[in-house]
């Protein structure tokens, strides 16, 4: 499974708690209220576990988490 799909699935299942939610890769995760402070920490923990990529605190900024695309781009840059 590629990273974008894994992220999308995780967010739908664990954060939105709705496996049938509509979530496109460019959708704004922030203004819709999908992500709150705790969900962001959850997501970071998931990324470290699932992809083995350590996300330092200073990279947990809204530009990198604005959408699944943004997140994926950030992670690609960190391989």
């Amino acid at each position: 499974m590629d990273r974008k799909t894994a992220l999308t699935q995780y967010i739908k299942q664990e954060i939105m708690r709705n496996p049938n939610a509509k979530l496109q890769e460019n959708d704004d995760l922030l203004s819709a209220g999908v992500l709150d402070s705790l969900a962001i920490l959850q997501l970071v923990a998931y990324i470290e576990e699932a992809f083995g990529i350590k996300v330092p605190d200073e990279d947990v900024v809204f530009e990198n988490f604005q959408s699944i695309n943004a997140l994926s781009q950030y992670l690609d840059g960190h391989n």
Partner: protein
Amino acid sequence: MARFLLTHAVTQGAEKHPQHEAIRFAGQALSYAELEQRTNSIARALIEQGVRRGDRVGVYMNKSLESAIAIYGIMKAGGAYVPLDPFAPVQRLSFVIQDCGIRHLLTQEMKLAQVEEIMRTPVKVECIIGLETAIDHRPDVRYLTWEEAYQTPNQAISYSLTEQDLAYILYTSGSTGNPKGIMHTHRSGLSFAEWAADEYGLRQEDRLSNHAPLHFDLSTFDFFAGAIAGATTVIIPEALTKFPASLSRLIADERISVWYSVPFALIQLMEHGVLESRDLSALRWVLFAGEVFPTKHLRELMLKLPGVRFSNLYGPTETNVCTYYHVPEPPVGDETIPIGLPCANVEDLVLDADDRPVGRGEVGELVIRGGVVMKGYWGQPDRNATCFYRRRVFNDFEDIFYRTGDLVQQDENGNYRYLGRKDRQIKTRGYRVELDEVEVALLSHQGVEEAAVYPIPDNQGSNLIGASVILKPGSLLTEADLVEHLNNRLPSYAVPAKIFILDDFPRTSTGKINRRELQAWALQSLGN
């Protein structure tokens, strides 16, 4: 020039330093002159659309430059602004709109979907400013865009408003039953803002953050105390409030000098905001309110920001802020810090269960009289009759105090200590227990990050005690460990019957722990 309305500070600012930045948002700015002109236009537009003195006008927007224009514009039109939580469910918004009879709404295009839903409910909104196009199913409503509203002439309105006029109504977060609308006048709003501008030595050069949403009264400091000082208020986009590293970067880039928020936001900044790599040299005051700041976290933060002064502000929304405590140095031990001394223009009184003033140093309910006290709850005559304590002065008139519902005790220095809500003192198996004392005991464990304690009614007129905790990352504490920890600190009847270890807590829209929801969940889990 006299200042008796909250809007006067903006008008005076426009006269004294018109080019000075009043408001900033996402890199854009409004000078005092621009703010004055735009708010005049909005006020005239609202009056043209039928807003009369005392009308309630809804503000349903995400943070933007328009946030400031909306609140001042409404007040200039003689109305009271009613901030509607941009993240609240439609049902709750509809309740608030109907409860206080909002007929005019200021909003934004990005809220279109929710506004459409709201307008399907039995609200009596007749005019909406801020949508680009009319709502299909509501052609009866009058619509204006912000641009159209700005076309209205921007001369000042000569309106005979007084300090007694309603300025804003804040609806409580509703963690107990239906939300109540707390009415504040220009007088009560100014009483707080003027005290704060003076107490914190606010100057024109200051740059205040606005972190709190408009429906939370911390925002009245950010805007109104800031305007009184002629300072700049930097509005923080909601998205940034979820990213401590982004937030700390903004605090540094915008050279914020005075910060005011709930403790939760500060703890997030401390733990994830990489403060060590930010230039926070402009910061001189950190103010916090709304919830107890766990002493161990406060200590850590103060040690991280040695050049900054810290102040604890206390007061229910009904009185905005009524006591304050400047923390003299990083606190030692685990005792919660005091809520401090009464503000100027406030009379403080402590009553026992029979409404008799207690002796100095004794525990009782804090009641408050003075400029900052609300006018009352909107449309709640029964509540308004019971929430005030009246003290007869001779036979001629009464002093009216607001009952805070908080238990306090004055220490030898005159500082009040907050002991908990009157309703946070419960009876269990015949014993009286302070639930907040149990919380403090839980927090004293190094492995505990946050703790919330609540009663679990046992259907026999008594209660069990329940607790939920969030552990520090990596901690392997079990319920049994925590019970042992508490057994060493509390009488046995005060130790919770059940401790849930959770990953997160439900919170209210103002960021406070929603203990009621935790309690409801616990009741469900225990099959009560």
